[in-house]
């Protein structure tokens, strides 16, 4: 495949390739208003991988949908904030202008490849559809390029399988087809929303390897959305941990795993059973994630936090900068990190 590496000059001087600034999103439902995203900021530079980690309901997928401009409105409303792509705020663009960004600049792959593909069209036709519609290719050219893309994502016998339907592929191969579709227009940013959650471990490893290879070959930036701390450890450069619609901790992968500085991250890491460590009782995070219609006062994690003090109930913690670009939204971030190191 012929792809020119993205020149770094595509990003304005000093700016980031993609930057979210203080994003607020709410869902207006019949039962009430859920504050789904409460001030999320993060950035992504060319060629790097940012992992966004969180449990169900933490807002990790909603953020991605906002970047892509595929939020269902209603019920979702973006209350405030900016999504800057190459310095331009996507939220102020018209729908037609956003369509130009989708696919060509920022593309997305979804968790469930079986329901994301159309069952009644051959996969080659589906990969080629983007090329015909958006790149104005002829049917023959689109077909040729679809075969190239299927080769790129290492689907064996691409030329023979181009006429097959999604149900004729295994789960792992379907996910590869999805990746081929996302790469069709050479995007600079790939958002992968739980790309391996529906797959078996041996296949999961294959897909993560493929994504890592492609990112290197094509010099793409990637946002990897996942709930699996194990998957993240292998591929990400930086991690943003989300809880109740906020980023509670942001750090490079190594420091985060070595010494988490937010009680939620620390609790998460301690509660996963590990293959290489045989423990007795698993430590747990007590209680449940909050109802987003009634987010607790102060720090949203305080009802579940072992470090809780009165200040946590009263005051929303700001991001505490810990050096090396690390931040933690906890009043006791230093203490938590020191405890983690001592562990």
């Amino acid at each position, binding site marked *: 495949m012929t792809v020119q590496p993205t020149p770094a000059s595509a990003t304005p001087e000093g700016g980031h390739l993609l930057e979210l600034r203080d994003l607020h999103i709410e869902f207006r439902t019949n039962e009430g208003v859920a504050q789904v995203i409460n001030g999320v900021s993060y950035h992504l530079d060319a060629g790097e991988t940012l992992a966004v980690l969180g449990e169900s309901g933490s807002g990790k997928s909603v953020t991605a949908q906002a970047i892509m401009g595929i939020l269902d409105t209603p019920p979702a409303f973006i209350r405030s904030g900016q999504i800057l792509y190459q310095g331009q705020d996507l939220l102020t663009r018209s729908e037609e202008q956003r369509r130009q960004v989708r696919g060509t600049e920022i593309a997305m792959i979804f968790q469930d490849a079986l329901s994301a593909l159309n069952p009644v069209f051959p996969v080659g036709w589906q990969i080629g559809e983007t090329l015909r519609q958006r790149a104005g290719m002829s049917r023959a050219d689109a077909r040729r390029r679809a075969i190239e893309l299927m080769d790129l994502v290492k689907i064996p016998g691409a030329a023979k399988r181009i006429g097959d339907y999604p149900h004729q592929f295994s789960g792992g191969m379907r996910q590869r087809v999805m990746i081929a579709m996302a790469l069709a227009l050479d995007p600079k940013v790939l958002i992968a929303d739980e790309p391996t959650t529906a797959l*078996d471990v041996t296949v999961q490893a294959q897909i993560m390897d493929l994504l890592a290879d492609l990112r290197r070959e094509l010099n793409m930036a990637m946002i990897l959305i996942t709930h699996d701390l194990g998957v993240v450890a*292998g591929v990400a450069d930086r991690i943003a941990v989300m809880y109740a619609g906020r980023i509670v901790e942001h750090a490079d992968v190594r420091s985060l*795993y070595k010494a988490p500085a937010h009680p939620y991250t620390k609790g998460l890491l301690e509660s996963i059973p590990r*293959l290489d460590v*045989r423990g007795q*009782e*698993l430590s747990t*995070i007590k209680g449940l*994630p909050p109802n987003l219609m009634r987010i607790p006062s102060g720090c949203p994690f305080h009802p579940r936090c072992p470090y809780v003090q009165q200040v946590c109930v009263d005051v929303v913690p700001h991001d505490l900068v810990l050096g090396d670009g690390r931040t933690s939204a906890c009043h006791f971030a230093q203490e938590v990190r020191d405890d983690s190191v001592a562990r």
Partner: protein
Amino acid sequence: MTASPANSTKVRGETILSVDNLVKHFPITQGVLFQRQIGAVKAVDGVSFELRRGETLGVVGESGCGKSTLARLLMRLETPTSGQATLEGRDLFKASGGELRRLRRNMQMVMQDPYTSLNPRMTVGDIIGEPFEIHPDAAPKGSKQKRVQELLDLVGLNPEHINRYPHQFSGGQRQRIGIARALALKPEVIVCDEPVSALDVSIQAQVINLLKQLQDELGLSYIFIAHDLSVVRHIADRVAVMYLGRIVEIGTDDEIYERATHPYTQALLSAVPVPDPEAREQRNMIRLVGDVPSPADPPSGCHFRTRCWKAQDICAVEDPATVPRAADPHPSACHFAELRPATP
């Protein structure tokens, strides 16, 4: 709640459930009026194991390996094509009528999906109390409501929530309801089919701890089916690894996780993501190529040979038995069973 008096006289460690050469083939038919069988999906293809009182047997494998069909067979939700299973010496598949009811009382199941396995129109009290209607002889003498509240308390839910509906609970809490329902009849064996797969990590740990604590208190035996090897290592005493309908390796926790001799087990273990970037770099990963073949048309000889880097001519011809191997004295179904030189 304490263990029923009947349980306390029974010896821990004796065999409670024994499964011998269990087979389940689902026919593939063609034609509308005169349906001819043109093949079979060999979901479970000759599985044997024993479960001892008070222990947890973990069953691991990828999707399509037959682990859930195995669970359904043991619950008699499916009829086996051939093979036997005995629960406390009584034949599980020959039993019918009243005897089957008594057997089923002794073996209960916790389902994977806490969202679809609870009836949304029934209150929690009705859901947990329903087993008593099916088995009136096991129903508590006094107030049924009191017993249900005891069960709620046992699984860590608020007994006052007895009149709530499933949608008012979170995923982890619903799984606790499913566990309470399984415990209602004081069974000795519980088959857990992926009980924590649908839960978030922080909640998953709570449910695993609950299952372990209940086992200690009530002397339960678990068959714990999961695809997550880390979870299984945490809870299981012994582990069976399944591939395309067969157990390819079975042994104690240490035998499987530290001294695996089957290439598939070794590959599976090396593919598990470890949440530690540094430990990860020291591991040497085995990358399997390709996908699991269709159970309707498994490879001849050793089922794993199409993805195995050790495969030789004999693997296509001779089906390796799951027997103790020279490399390590636990059963492994590989002609070339050997320990991995560098442990991950």
